[in-house]
């Protein structure tokens, strides 16, 4: 609990939706109207300590994924900054860098190298990764033959074996069957015990209040509430049921 592991200061991100629409000839040649902007994150500041699991909740489009992408460093914000201390591993999506036509073994290398590991490190952990994913002989079959459970288990196993200091997670606690879910939960607790940090975005309020120490509720790109996970979840639930009651 010394110096914070993730520091987000005054983060501001806006998108101009017109660039995301296909530019038609008329729109490109026509007079440029001042583009309407969508503010995805509106001056958001918070920090996460070492050994802490921090949850982010909110409705669709509240800016949760944008926040994760800024912290991961793949999206450059328009203002403010997001600083992460330590080796970061992202599980924003499962199986990033995998090529389905190749074998599981080959994809362990691809996924690991994509995430910044050295080949030598992967060589050393290969057996562990395969064993952890419970794949056995299937590891030498092309990944397109895998069931979605097998795919997720391998992806999760690669991500956890990076031994990250900071893990960025997007909604994927539901990996594999019940026994593997228990195992993955244990792996994440282990990471927290090693003074690692988890930033966790989810729609599952139950897992946020159970797993996270603190949480933040984002609404329309602003922080609606931040603090103890159970309190924030309760506040969010109230607002959802109020909206439903209208």
């Amino acid at each position: 609990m010394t110096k914070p592991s993730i520091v987000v200061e005054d983060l501001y991100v806006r998108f101009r939706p017109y660039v995301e629409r296909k530019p038609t000839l008329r729109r490109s040649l026509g007079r440029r109207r001042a583009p309407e902007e969508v503010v995805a994150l509106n001056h958001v500041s918070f920090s996460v300590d070492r050994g802490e699991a921090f949850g982010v909740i909110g409705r669709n489009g509240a800016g949760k994924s944008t926040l994760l992408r800024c912290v991961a460093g793949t999206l450059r914000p328009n203002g403010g900054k997001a600083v992460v201390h330590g080796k970061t591993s992202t599980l924003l999506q499962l199986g990033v860098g995998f090529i389905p036509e190749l074998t599981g073994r080959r994809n362990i290398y691809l996924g690991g190298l994509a995430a910044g590991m050295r080949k030598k490190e992967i060589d050393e952990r290969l057996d562990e990764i395969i064993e952890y994913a419970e794949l056995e002989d299937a590891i030498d079959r092309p990944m397109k033959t895998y069931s979605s459970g097998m795919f997720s288990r391998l992806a999760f196993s690669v991500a956890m074996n990076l031994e990250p200091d900071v893990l960025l997670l997007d909604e994927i606690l539901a990996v594999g069957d019940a026994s593997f879910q228990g195992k993955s939960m244990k792996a994440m607790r282990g990471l927290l015990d090693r003074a690692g940090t988890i930033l966790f975005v989810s729609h599952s309020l139950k897992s946020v209040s159970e797993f996270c120490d603190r949480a933040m509720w984002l609404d329309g790109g602003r922080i609606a509430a931040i603090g103890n996970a159970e309190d924030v979840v309760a506040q969010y639930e109230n607002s959802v049921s109020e909206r439903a009651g209208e």
Partner: protein
Amino acid sequence: MTQTSSPIYYTRRLVYYVSELWRRREFIWFLAMGNFKARNASTTLGLFWWVLNPLLLSLVYWFIFGFIFPSERDIIYLMSGMFVFHFTAQSLTGGANAVLQNRALLTNLKFPRLILPLANLLEGLVGFGVSLGLLAVLQSIGNQHFPSAVDLALLLAIVPLHFLFNLGLGSITARLAVPFRDINNFIPYINRVWLYLSPIIWPLTLLESERGQSFAPYAEANPMFALISVYRSALIGDPFDPRMFLEFTIWALVLGVLGVGLFVRYEGKIARHL
């Protein structure tokens, strides 16, 4: 702003960028070879397609210009030009696709984005190496030209320049393809026109003939003209023209620096457009 525009700042950034690329060299290699295998994994002939594609292409033109419109050009002449051109044409398409098809990598992981066009180019280089090997085999069967040490040295000098040239072009299409996906539809036409403008299926003597005279002054402005002429001196024993080598070196340096520069300056914004 003075700090961010000083040459020292840019030099530092460049050194950092290149060292990051070097640190990720294993990833570049695995990505290139992974795509290479995946592309051919589901076909019966598999990896043979690397040799077959350029071979079949040459055969088609050999058939057209050997039988339908007979001329004195042989298949080695066609193939040498075709393989050199194919490597470049592929880097144009591949550069655009490298960024568009790796959305998941781009939105999830932080790494120097130049890795994507680089890996694509490396994949092309392996294929190009295979086709040059094929050419060498065919030539030794025909007993036409045995490469000397000088030819090999020339080859070793021109291949890196060719690579740099392609990297520049691939980076430009990668840069353009993100906001303007339409570029993907244009590239095949650009490649087609470029193929006919280059001395691949027509002989150099065309330029001296009456029919070619109006085009001759422009023909040599094409970087592919200089490039193919250097390759042909190394591969099939055409006379070596140092001017051509110099001309292409300038092309490669200018396009390489320009393309990579444009791409790297833009890469922070890529995620916004995906």
